[in-house]
């Protein structure tokens, strides 16, 4: 499926805004993404498997805070950097 990469994370994807990754759950897709682009997951998900405060994740068009969310028929994952994370 297609994973949409926000600007702050594109240094990991050689500036690509869309990349491919696979998995039956959101967590599995992010694990696959990290295999393809090492280091990208930790910038989004902390060491306790919590989604970082200013990162929002969507399976298809539905936001989820659960990495166990099944990807099902969804064909895309959106990673969004919340406006709340902008640095002063």
């Amino acid at each position, binding site marked *: 499926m297609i994973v949409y990469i*926000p600007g*702050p*994370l594109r240094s990991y994807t050689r500036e690509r805004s869309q990349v491919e990754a696979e998995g039956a759950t959101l967590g599995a897709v992010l694990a696959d993404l990290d295999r393809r682009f*090492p*280091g990208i997951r*930790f*910038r*989004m*998900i*902390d*060491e*306790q*498997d*919590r989604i*970082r405060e*200013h*990162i929002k994740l969507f399976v298809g068009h539905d936001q989820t805070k659960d990495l166990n969310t099944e990807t099902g028929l969804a064909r895309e994952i959106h990673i969004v*950097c*919340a406006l709340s*994370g*902008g*640095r002063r």
Partner: protein
Amino acid sequence: MVTNVRLLVGTAKGGWILDSDAARRKWTVSAPICFGQSVNHMVADPREPSRVVAAAKAGHLGPTIFVSVDGGRKWKEASKPPAFDKPEEGSGLSVDHVFWLTPGHRSEPGVWWAGTSPPGLFRSEDHGATWTGVDGLNKNPMRPQWCGGEGPPGGARMHSILIDPRDARHMYFGMSLGGVFETMDGGASWAPLNKGCEIDYIPGPPPEFGHDPHCVRLHPLAPDRLYQQNHCGIYRMDRPTGEWTRIGRKIPKKTGDIGFPMTLHPRDPETCWVFPMDGTSVWPRTSPGGKPAVYVTRNGGKSWIRQDKGLPPDNAWFTVFRQAMTCDARKPAGLYFGTTSGEIWASRDEGESWKRIAEHLPRIQSLEIG
């Protein structure tokens, strides 16, 4: 041989490198490094100065470490940044930001230490590429009590990781609202080292820990001499005694002995500099009275001299963070401090006179000699 001086500057919006000419009069400023990311500390490895390690965090993203092997031109991210272990049950800690970096002992090439917020200690054995938690602290059953306080704005931090040049296993660190701690076994076990330190923000007799060191320094030529700029004054300790003595009382009362940074003379253990700030009322943390000054002692704290020649005489509300004052090894030594308003001030004569060498940078969080 006269060498140029290189300053590594960590700011709220990235890192910069300043290079001087041989006379330390002219300075060039690099392009930004890790632009837009908060760089809390950028430190060169004295064992191999072309290696530089930087602690960074972007607004949206988690904390990480970048490593350069060519003096800061190119950077590579750590493949395993500092992160707490995930417990089998319950929820564990997560690193908010890496606050402090210390190159390891001369006998341990490749070793680095990192202090985080919330307070945690991490070690790398491969020049900063991968990091592992130090269980002797991070999993110490006393850690929740030692780190019990909420800490200052921005979170409680581990800082001032110091290594005895005579013994790689003998170390110290400072911790917000925890105090100073010491290990004799390379970090396997730790003990508080706060006796004699005042603590005016809690009632009752002085506790064993819970103090608030802002900056602790150990003199490399006299490693039994420790200095400390604390939330409650300036202190000194001469080992083997385990008791701090307040040495800041001779600074005039209207200035006071509260501040963040402290830096030591490269050759004279009796000399150190501090940058007093207003720690009264609501703690503005700015130069007292809007009159910035460095204070120096040349006799281990028995007396202090104000050094403000060249600094703004009035209406200058500088704040200088704990990592943002440093000293080069030239003769006479050069002193440098960076302000939260993005200025760097330098002295070529050990603080006797000052000149601004950079302005318009973002909030300066750290300043180190490269």
